């Protein structure tokens, strides 16, 4: 079995060394910097590792540096300094080897103006050295609900369909690493669900997934680990569940009453807020204080009409880290 996260990764070793020793990780980035020509620092001293077979989320607001990081991996942007290694191959020195094992769905919509979807995917297979890929192309077209449109010129497709075609192009050579930069932008809910199903299937088959998304709910549901990045710096990098715990396991209980309780001193041990219009009380508590809070709520001597529990979401973590109120 391949060991995934090796702390003592040596950049002087050849990829063959790692394959022979059974030692390689999917992505290693060390002290990566990118400064554009106008002195804008897009990435600052980025250190991260992506393990084989995981779904890794890269989150951040617009201009955070997510796309720059992805574009460095796939050769669209040159790094200023630092070390980047994909499955043991160094970027950019061994860029052809790197490109063979990654598939990229770029953020910007683009589509060819001359060829049909089927032709585009056949060419894409050929670029990766695959001569006869019709069976897999058909599987992708059906999985992404593009099969009925396979003879249409790619440029004439709607935005959502263009996005799906870009996803199909990125997957057509069965890449070891699939990089998805905002893959669901402009795609409707039904197709978003089918796209994530396909991504999960590929992941189960061993494909490592690196994705950026603005949809934090999606990231929370699908990602094994998440890196939150802002202004070129990593703010957090952890397993998704650990990030969610980071704000202290705080929960919010909202109680709705027919008549507002008057003896609010009964819940003085907790922080709470009142909404007199809704006749509701919101009580903030930690996970281990459930019994205590229920006991004190009983002391209010009013029957609650409804109850809602709100847990911290990734969105709360994200807002907290990037300083959005």
């Amino acid at each position, binding site marked *: 079995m391949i060991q995934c996260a090796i702390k003592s990764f040596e950049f002087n070793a050849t990829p063959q060394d790692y394959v022979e020793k059974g030692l390689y990780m999917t992505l290693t980035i060390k002290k990566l910097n990118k400064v*554009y*020509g106008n002195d804008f620092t897009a990435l600052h001293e980025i250190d991260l590792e992506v393990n084989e077979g995981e779904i890794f989320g890269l989150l951040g607001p617009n201009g955070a540096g997510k796309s720059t990081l992805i574009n460095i991996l*796939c*050769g*669209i*942007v*040159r790094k200023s300094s630092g070390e980047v290694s994909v499955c043991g191959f160094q970027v950019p020195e061994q860029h*052809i*080897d790197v*490109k*063979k094992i990654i598939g*990229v769905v*770029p953020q*910007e*919509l*683009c*589509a*060819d*103006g*001359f*060829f049909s979807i089927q*032709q585009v995917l056949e*060419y894409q*297979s*050929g*670029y*990766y*050295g*695959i*001569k006869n890929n019709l069976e897999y192309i058909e599987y992708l077209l059906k999985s992404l609900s593009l099969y009925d449109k396979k003879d249409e010129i790619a*440029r004439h497709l709607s935005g959502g369909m263009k996005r799906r075609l870009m996803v199909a192009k990125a997957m057509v050579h069965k890449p070891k690493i699939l990089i998805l930069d905002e893959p669901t932008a402009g795609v409707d809910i039904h197709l978003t669900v089918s796209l994530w199903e396909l991504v999960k299937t590929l992941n189960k088959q061993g494909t490592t997934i690196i994705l950026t998304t603005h949809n934090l709910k999606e990231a929370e549901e699908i990602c094994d680990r998440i890196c939150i990045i802002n202004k070129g710096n990593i703010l957090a990098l952890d397993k998704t569940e650990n990030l969610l715990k980071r704000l202290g396991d705080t929960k919010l209980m909202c109680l709705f009453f027919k008549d507002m309780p008057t003896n609010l001193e009964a819940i003085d041990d907790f922080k709470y807020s009142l909404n007199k219009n809704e006749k509701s009380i919101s009580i903030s508590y930690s996970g281990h204080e459930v019994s205590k809070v229920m006991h004190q709520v009983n002391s209010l001597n009013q029957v609650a009409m409804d109850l809602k529990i709100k847990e911290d979401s990734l969105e709360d973590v994200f807002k907290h880290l990037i300083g959005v109120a």
Partner: protein
Amino acid sequence: MNNLVGFLTLFKKETDRYMSVAIQTLFAPLVSSLLYLAIFGLPMREMSSQIVGVSYLAFLVPGLMMMGMINNSFQNSSSSLMISKYTGTVSELLVLPISSFEKVMAYTLAAMGRGLIVGFLTLVTAMFFVDIPLNNIPLIIIVCLLVNSSFSLLGICAGIWAKNFDQMAILNQFILMPMIFLGGVFYSIKNLSGLFQKLSMVNPVLYMIDALRYAFLGSSDISIFVSMSILVAINLISFTAAWWIFHSGYKLQS
């Protein structure tokens, strides 16, 4: 080549691209060349004038072939890259596991194909109307290959360099077209006065047209060795430039 299938696929795609719009890319240039032949050639035929020992129409055909080949080989690679810029697919070129050498060769060979087809169609069609001597067929083929390759390579450079279609139009209308028209498509430089003759000598297209005329007619204004040396030099320079552009990511990578 490391990725032969990838190279062949890119070549096929570029070829399929111009073949899918063949009326625009192959037959329209042919019609243009034949119109030039009719407009400039037919009145001169009545005057039974001769240049370098052959009829004016026979003199004109290699020039028209050259004009068609230069325009179309240049436009194929340059417009393909320009269109890629506008559709956003140019960045995909950077992501493909195809080396800079393979990319240059694929774009060049596809563009050469278009130029050669236009040149061949122009010759075959003209042969119905004009008696054209074929003095040295191997040399005709070699000159056509070298001319098409050099302008295919220069088209790559132009396609990457130009920011928009305006800049490409400037290159086409203010540099390429004057070079072709002043390169002796319609006349022999021996008919020019001293100053214009000297100015013509710095125009590389003159040597290309002259080399092709030599191959067809067996006589020319300039030594064939000089013309061929210049053709080879232009190919080497333009290949190096096109390869460097892809290799360095000039105007493609940020």
